[in-house]
């Protein structure tokens, strides 16, 4: 589903990602972990062709990430997601549906189902400018789920949310597990990752430290947080 081969990204003298290679299989719930500035968001941006690698290659479903076709069945939620304040949540979802070439009658059905899924019934027709950060995040997640994507890329999906919001997002992601969807999750919240994901990779200063199943990474008597701190602090 996702494959990175010897990917390096340099910003002038800074190496944001240093010769990283790993793959994520279909149906896997995968978490990319690392401290701030480790290169997690850079990897996500390279997957979506928002920025190009200095060397190496990335592919999605066997298609190079530089080709627009590879994003055919991908949903993406950005870190600190924004939505134009002049639109309503419904209009935003409708635009996302139209951009995925879903016809107008089907798009309305899709939007209705998604509004229900993200628990925003009754608020979908008000302007985004009146929404709280959590509500914007939910609509962002709703937009990412538009068109039933096979791969969901979530960059810090719980960023800025209160504990209740975090729990709701987690429950929503868990509810998707049976659909065969692949999830690529960038997160700081190790306890959430431990509950949701099957596999994880930890990177620090652009280098891949480990990539395995959560159960293999976390030894007896340890938590994911213990392992993370041990690996990152060297």
């Amino acid at each position, binding site marked *: 589903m996702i494959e990175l081969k010897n990917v390096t990204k340099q910003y002038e003298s800074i190496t944001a990602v240093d010769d990283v290679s790993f793959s994520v299989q279909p149906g896997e719930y995968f978490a990319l972990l690392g401290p701030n500035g480790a290169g997690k968001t850079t990897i996500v*941006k390279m997957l*979506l*062709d*928002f*920025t*190009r690698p200095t060397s190496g290659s990335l592919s999605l479903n066997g298609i190079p990430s530089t080709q*627009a*076709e*590879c*994003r*055919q069945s*991908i949903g*993406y939620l*950005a870190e600190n*997601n*924004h*939505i*134009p*304040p*002049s639109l309503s949540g419904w209009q935003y979802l409708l*635009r*996302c549906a*139209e*951009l*995925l*070439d879903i016809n107008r009658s089907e798009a309305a059905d899709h939007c209705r189902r998604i509004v229900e899924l993200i628990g925003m019934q009754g608020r979908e027709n008000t302007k985004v400018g009146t929404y709280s950060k959590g509500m914007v995040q939910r609509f*962002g997640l709703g*937009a990412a789920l538009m068109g039933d994507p096979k791969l969901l*890329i979530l960059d810090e999906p719980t960023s800025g949310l209160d504990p209740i919001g975090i729990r709701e997002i987690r429950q929503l992601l868990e509810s998707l597990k049976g659909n065969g969807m692949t999830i690529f999750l960038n997160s700081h919240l190790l306890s959430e990752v431990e509950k949701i994901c099957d596999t994880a990779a930890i990177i620090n200063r652009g280098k891949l430290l480990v990539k395995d199943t959560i159960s293999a990474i976390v030894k007896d008597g340890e938590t994911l947080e213990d392992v993370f701190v041990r690996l990152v602090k060297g």
Partner: protein
Amino acid sequence: METSKSLPLITKITKYTLIDEVQQRSFVILFVFCAICVFLIRGCYQGNYMVNGQALDAGTIVRTLSKATFHVIGAGVMVIAALLSMRIFRRDRNEGMQSCILSKPIARWHYVMGKALGLWVVSALFMFILHSIVFLITSINLKVFMPEYLVASLLCSINLLFVVIAVLLLSLLMPDIVAFLCVLGIGVVGFVADGIAAASQSQIAQAMLQQPTGHPQSDLTWWKVVYVLWPKLLGVQQLASSLIESGASRGFGTIYPLINVLVYCLILGALLFKRFRNEDIV
């Protein structure tokens, strides 16, 4: 990507750009203000104008004034088009639409083309409506029908395409306001140069040019080349306004300005696509 898939995507992005612009409060205020200003000129048509002691006939007054208004609207909307274009990428970036669109199976050139076309359509419609107000005033109040006025407006919209593409390109390379000022500068220099060129055609200027000046001949040639190659925005306006002249005897004049601006649009458009392809999406 196939054309059958590309066209609907570009059309959708164009539509969203158009809707987003029209919904901006600043745009609405600007439009209403311009429409009122144009509407106010109807009083100018009702005066008695004398040239060399002879009263001008109504038809001449209408055409002369309409032509002057045509140029003022054309130049004014170019400034407005530059203002609208200078912030479009930044606003899309800040509001999350750029990453939302480009995370879908949409190529960057679709996005850029959709944005450029959307802005062009918005500004061309803006100009067309203002020109239509003049057309309606002359048609209803003065009973002078000038359908060619509207054709001239459409022809003049080529200038807006140039402005939109140039500002979009420069806004990727420099701060938005500097991009706006640069394109404004290109326009002003072109207008001034064309004005000087027109004045130099006068007999007095011709006589002055024949005096020994001490400047080497090569300098004059160099400046002539720059002048000829400079974006001919005023030339396109003059070409368009030549349609408004009564009687078709003057014809369309030279079409060189049109070709000049179209070539610039193609070159700047290619540079815009190339530059945006390498842009990091935030």
